[in-house]
């Protein structure tokens, strides 16, 4: 296949950046999207050019490192698929492909397609855990978790922290990412003790880190490679409402 790529090139955070056009000839349909870019880079290197910088690591859709907006869609057009798992057979001869980085004020661009997602870590640090000490915990089977609850928690826990939800959200809100963790820990007995504190802290961190507010556009769910559902955002809202109600012990 022959393809035309329009790739966002930006030297650094200060640089304004612009789209550059590249040709990708003899692309094999069995190549992954990133392998196609590898080849483009090899050619660039051979011709003394500056290869395109992009984040990637596991290349099997689980680490959440890869982050590219392809033709306006985070992770590209294939549903429930990360860029690294997107294969060229999804494209057609002669296609024009626009490749851009995640765009959100909370994700400053380091270079080309590489952005800084530290903000997501900060949100987690604000309360994305069940505070247990190493050692001295009860036997795993003393806490019974019925299968439906365990499955619900697992559905939420599958988030890979890629940030595509933020990239897709018209408000650059990280609410889907945040809600996945809040919901997982809210339904598990291990997490209930801190539920109120957690939902307050994590939602506040969202504002502090410069993410937008959720106004229920649901674009995040559509872009999420792991199919994290916006029902978790509803759950987060509910948890927040609950946290407003003082319990008899407070």
């Amino acid at each position, binding site marked *: 296949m022959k393809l035309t790529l*329009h790739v966002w090139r930006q030297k650094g955070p200060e640089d304004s950046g612009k789209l550059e056009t590249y040709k990708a000839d003899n692309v094999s349909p069995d190549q992954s999207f990133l392998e196609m870019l590898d080849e483009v880079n090899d050619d660039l290197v051979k011709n003394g050019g500056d290869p395109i910088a992009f984040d990637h690591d596991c290349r099997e859709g689980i680490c959440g490192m890869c982050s590219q907006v392809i033709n306006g869609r985070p992770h590209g057009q294939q549903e429930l698929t990360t860029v690294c798992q997107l294969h060229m057979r999804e494209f057609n001869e002669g296609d024009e492909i*626009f490749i851009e980085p995640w*765009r959100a004020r909370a994700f400053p661009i380091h270079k080309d397609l590489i952005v800084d997602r530290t903000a997501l870590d900060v949100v987690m640090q604000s309360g994305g855990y069940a505070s247990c000490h190493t050692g001295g915990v009860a036997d795993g089977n003393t806490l019974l978790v019925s299968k439906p609850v365990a499955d619900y928690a697992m559905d939420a826990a599958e988030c890979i922290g890629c940030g595509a939800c933020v990239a897709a959200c*018209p408000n650059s809100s990280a*609410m889907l990412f945040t809600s996945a963790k809040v919901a997982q820990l809210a339904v598990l007995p291990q997490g209930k003790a801190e539920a109120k504190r957690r939902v307050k802290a994590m939602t506040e961190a969202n504002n502090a880190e410069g993410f937008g*507010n959720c*106004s229920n556009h649901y674009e995040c769910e559509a872009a999420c490679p792991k199919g994290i559902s916006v*029902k978790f955002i*509803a759950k987060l809202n509910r948890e927040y409402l609950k946290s407003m109600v003082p319990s008899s012990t407070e």
Partner: protein
Amino acid sequence: MNLLTNTVGRKILMAVTGLLLIAFITVHLIGNLSVFAGPDGINAYAKALHDLGPLVWLFRLGMVALFAIHITFGIQLYMENKAATPDPYAIQKTLVTSFSAKTMIFTGLIILAFLLYHLLHFTLQVTNPSISAANLPLDAASRLDVYSMMVLSFQKVFISLIYIVAMIALLLHLAHGISSWVQTFGWSTGPSQDKVISIGKVLAIVYGLAYIAIPLLILARIVK
């Protein structure tokens, strides 16, 4: 307080006030539809309202508060979201969100503008004094003739247009607003999500058309 600063807290305030505003326009709609029952309908309704005396003021105060909260946070959230979102993608794609969701602030502001005009028009009656209830003769039952005021007003194309445009804005605003607050209150769940959204849209259309019917039917001289 956390509720006023927190991203979800303010979202919930939007929903609560939004919901109460819906309650108001529902009652208001029913009241206004009594115009189709002729003078005895609407004029009686208006009288009943006015006879509430101090309660009216209590109610008005509440309305002002509702709008104030809803509008302030609506604008504030909108500004924050703009600030959080840099220049758009070369190819902008949205898959599931709707026109009405993307234009909440604008339809909202149109409603606001309409509201100011609306109060000047019907409540303070300064825009068209000649045909305002205050200056019209009392009706047969010696009540303020709100009926004639409405009919004479909406026979004017210009006034009707303002109302119709505003009601379209309201329709759009509710098209996202109604399902949106279900999600904001945490009631919507995965699969039933789509149903909630469509029901919201249907309700919005019902509200919109019902409201539009009033100026439209009068303008079309179907109601005289």
